[in-house]
C-alpha cells in the first residue's frame, strides 16, 4: 500500500526515518509512542519510515517488541533521495498542517523536549512559515521551539 504525505494534510506530522539496526533510533521510539498517544486527538501523527534493507521481515518483530502504536512504512532509495539521501539515521522532519517542512530537519538523536516544543508549537500555531526547497525565504521559522 502506498501512503501519501498529502493524505495527512490538516495534521501535524512527525516524519521519522529510522531502522531496526539503529540504536539512537531505538531511543526515540518510546518518545514517539508517547507523542502519538498524547497528541493524536489534537491532529497529530507520527509516520515512521523504516530504511531496513530486509524489509518487513526485520520490521514486524521490532514493531511488535517495541509496541509501536504509530504508522510504520517501508522506505527505499527513491524516498531517501527525496529527503536528502538519508545517509544517517535517525532523521526526522516536522510537517505542518499545510504539508510543509516547518523546521530544519533533525539529523541524529536530539532531546525529547526539542520534539515536544516543536510539536506543541505547530499544534498551537496555524500561521507557519516553511523551509521549502528553492524558497528565497529560508530564514523564517517559528520562534516557539526556543523554550
Amino acid at each position, binding site marked *: 500500500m*502506498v*501512503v*501519501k*504525505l*498529502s493524505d495527512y494534510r490538516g495534521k501535524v506530522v512527525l*516524519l521519522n526515518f529510522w*531502522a*531496526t*539496526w*539503529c*540504536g*539512537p*533510533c*531505538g*531511543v526515540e521510539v518510546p518518545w514517539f509512542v508517547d507523542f502519538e498517544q498524547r497528541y493524536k486527538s489534537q491532529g497529530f501523527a507520527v*509516520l515512521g*519510515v523504516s*530504511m531496513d*534493507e530486509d524489509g518487513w521481515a*526485520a520490521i514486524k518483530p*521490532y514493531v511488535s517488541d517495541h509496541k509501536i502504536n504509530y504508522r510504520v*512504512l517501508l*522506505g527505499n532509495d*527513491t*524516498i531517501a533521495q*527525496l*529527503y*536528502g*539521501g*538519508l*545517509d*544517517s*539515521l*535517525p*532523521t526526522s522532519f516536522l*510537517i505542518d498542517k499545510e*504539508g*510543509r*517542512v516547518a523546521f530544519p*530537519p533533525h*539529523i*541524529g*538523536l536530539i532531546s525529547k523536549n526539542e520534539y515536544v516544543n516543536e510539536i506543541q508549537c505547530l499544534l498551537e500555531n496555524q500561521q507557519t512559515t516553511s*523551509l*521549502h*526547497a*528553492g524558497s528565497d525565504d529560508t530564514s523564517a521559522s517559528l520562534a516557539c521551539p526556543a523554550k
Partner: protein
Amino acid sequence: MLGLMTLPLLSPAQQNKMSVAPSDPLIVKRGEAAKQILKAVILPGFHVNSDKPKDEFLIPLKLTWNAGPLEAKSISYPKPEEMELNGSQMVVYTGTIAIETQFVAAKDAAPGSSTATGKLKYQACNSQMCFRPATLDVHFPVVIE
C-alpha cells in the same frame, strides 16, 4: 509515496567509517594450514557492532571469504569493548581491530600466485546517529608452493 517535496539537505556525506589495511602475501604449502590477519581501522568517534551484538536487531561485523585458492576453516574476531550508549549496553569495536582467519590450501591446489578475496560487512554509528550497513572488499596475495 511520500514524495511531497524535494529538499536540498546537507546530510553528512556517506563515506566509509571503516577501512582495511593492505595485507601481506600469504605463502602456503599445498595441504597445509596458515593464518592471515586482517587489520581494519574504524574512524575516530565511530564504533561498529561486534560479531555478536547483544541486541538481536543490530547488524554484526561479518567477514566472509570467496571460494578461491584457499579454504577458510575458521574466523576469529577480537574481543569487543563493552560500551554504555544511550542507556543500552553494547559490545562494539573501535580503533584498529585484527580479525584472524585460518586457511587451508588443498592438497591438489595448483602451485603459483593468486589472490584471495572476501567481504567485510559492518554497520557503524556514533553516539548520535547510525549509518547504513556497508561492505568492504578485502583481498590479499596468495602464493601456493
